[in-house]
């Protein structure tokens, strides 16, 4: 069975493998999951501190990292994170795409001029990030579980998160690694290729962005045609992810990634589909492992903080409002009869 649980220090090697050797397809698709062992170990440590509710005032803000485990083999097949507050106490950078109307009454001319404004507008939004999964699992139930488990985590720990959620979607990158938006804009200011900038962004403090990002608004019409076409467009490999998030209620607004021009999706936390449709239920007396309960496939989450677990199972409601699931699910969730779980339809 598939299980989503908090990342543990022992997962480092397997996560690094998923994050991928530089240049692999997966590697290109993960931008905020560190690919350096130390950075990753630090991230996991911080996640565990956050899960224990032990982040201190004035210290680093809570950030969480979860993994997708195949319980039959114990292998990790994916990772996904949540930053309680985008920017983690520092500015969070985006471009905000906005429009000005340049109109001359005298000449009877009116034209729309698109402008990219440097923005910190999404700072302190809750951020879904670090999503990475082995390619063969893309478009499977496991893929959906890994992504949506985070929403159930948010639902169960609502106080830790803010009113709005954002998620950055990887933008257009060609097979040769070139990124049209970067090549037309960022490259001139950062004086480095996209890969390097992307790596710095995952590993270093964001100070370098403040230092190197163009300080003034940028006219879209002055970007290369390829860059203009790429604005707000997702990388083709992220389309399934994008669609899943759209079903969740996320919408592309006016924000764009500063490196690749990819879209940033936004939603109101309390309106997220999984959160709205999830219900708290008590676990009901066991049915046999062979018996799937005859119910629908559901996401079932339980546990607080470091005890958070989320899995996919067939479950059926009972007349008493309890939930009937196979016993093996109990043990996965580390819960027993009568314990409360959060369930959402798949």
């Amino acid at each position: 069975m598939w299980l989503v649980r908090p990342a543990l220090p022992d997962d480092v090697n397997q996560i690094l493998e998923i994050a991928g050797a530089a240049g692999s397809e997966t590697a290109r698709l993960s931008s905020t999951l560190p690919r350096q062992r130390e950075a990753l170990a630090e991230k996991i440590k911080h996640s565990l501190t956050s899960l224990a509710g032990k982040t201190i005032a004035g210290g680093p803000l809570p950030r969480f990292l979860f993994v997708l485990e195949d319980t039959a083999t114990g292998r990790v097949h994916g990772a996904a994170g949540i930053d309680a507050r985008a920017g983690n106490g520092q500015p969070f950078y985006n471009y905000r795409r906005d429009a000005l109307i340049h109109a001359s009454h005298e000449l009877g001319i009116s034209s729309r001029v698109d402008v990219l404004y440097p923005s910190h507008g999404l700072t302190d939004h809750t951020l879904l990030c670090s999503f990475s999964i082995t390619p063969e699992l893309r478009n499977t139930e496991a893929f959906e579980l890994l992504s949506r488990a985070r929403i159930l985590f948010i639902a169960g720990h609502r106080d830790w998160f803010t009113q709005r959620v954002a998620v950055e979607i990887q933008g257009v990158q060609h097979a040769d690694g070139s990124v049209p938006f970067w090549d037309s804009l960022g490259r001139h200011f950062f004086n480095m290729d996209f890969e390097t900038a992307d790596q710095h962004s995952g590993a270093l403090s964001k100070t370098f962005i403040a230092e190197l990002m163009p300080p003034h608004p940028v006219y879209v019409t002055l970007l290369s045609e390829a860059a203009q076409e790429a604005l707000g467009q997702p990388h083709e490999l992220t389309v399934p992810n994008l669609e899943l998030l759209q079903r969740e209620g996320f919408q592309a607004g006016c924000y764009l990634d500063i490196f690749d021009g990819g879209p940033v999706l936004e939603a109101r936390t309390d309106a997220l589909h999984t959160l709205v449709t999830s219900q708290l239920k008590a676990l009901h007396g066991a049915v046999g492992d062979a018996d799937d309960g005859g119910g629908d496939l559901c996401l079932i989450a339980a546990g607080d903080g470091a005890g958070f677990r989320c899995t996919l199972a067939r479950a059926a409601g009972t007349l008493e409002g309890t939930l009937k699931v196979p016993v093996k699910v109990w043990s996965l969730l580390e819960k027993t009869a009568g314990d409360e779980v959060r369930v959402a339809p798949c």
Partner: protein
Amino acid sequence: MLVIRPLQQSDLEDLYTMAQRAGKGLTSLPADRDMLQRKINQAQETFNQRCAPEAGLYLFALEDTDTGKAVGISGIQARVGLDEVFYNYRLSVTVNASKELGVHVRTPTLHLSNDMTDTSEICSLLLSSDYHGGGNGLLLSRCRFMFLDEFRKHFSEKVFAEMRGVSDEQGMSPLWDALGSKFFDMEFIEADMLSGLGNKSFIAELMPKYPIYLPMLPDSARAVIGRVHGNTAPALTMLKAEGFNFNGMVDIFDGGPVVEAFVHTIRTVRDSFNRYASVTRKAIDLDVPADKRVMISNRSFRNFRVTTVPASCVGIDTVSLPPEVAEALQIESGDPVRLAPLKERSQAPAKAAN
């Protein structure tokens, strides 16, 4: 004989012919009779002091006294940017640096600016092609510095000139194509014309207000920023010899440079000197090469006149003038005159353009 004098009503047709022959490059003098008539009226009001000093437009005609025709024009705008907003791009540098990453990037950037507001501009120079050579262009241009010098209180301490930028025979400008055309749904010529007709509000309405990062423009456009049109190169050389320098401002349409100088440092101003006229019956050969001639002005505001005489006419206190020159300058013996060399004394090459 060629004499500089204030532009007058009878010059309209000559002016129109000149503007027509000059073609499309000259936006300050469009071949438009109404427009030219307005300029003449404005110049007349200015010289007769019937308008506010800062609104003054001093236009001078170069008249061939043999034919009575105007064969050239040049001017000084007392102050720019008062009636209409005056725009330029300032070419400056944006530096992005990260010590952590060892990155230090300089990005040339164009900032829209109104910095020339309230400054005097020398403008509208046009010489009929039949009269090119022989120092006529120098007289037409430099007479303005003599006027600026005489009547400094009417002008700003600093004066500037906008130089025509690069465009091809079809009137296509690389900077316009890469920048202006993205914001103005019209051809460069049309925009330039509208701007020349004083129709400038459309610039404020349509022009990009945020800085333009040059690396985002194509090489062809970057290459012409601060460069002059081939036809304007001699004028630039002349102004540089007078002490004008590129001040970092460029034209918002074609990227042509703005050059400026303080009036008191202009070569013609520094080299000027006063004498008294002495009309003589002695035969004087006026036909000497340009480098052996000096400009001579009658020091009059309302009826400012300048012509050239051989340097050999200049004495210790006086300058000997044949009657026809005195007549052209409308002076008599004993009247004060002011003189300045027509050409640089040393022909040391002007310092290389920056």
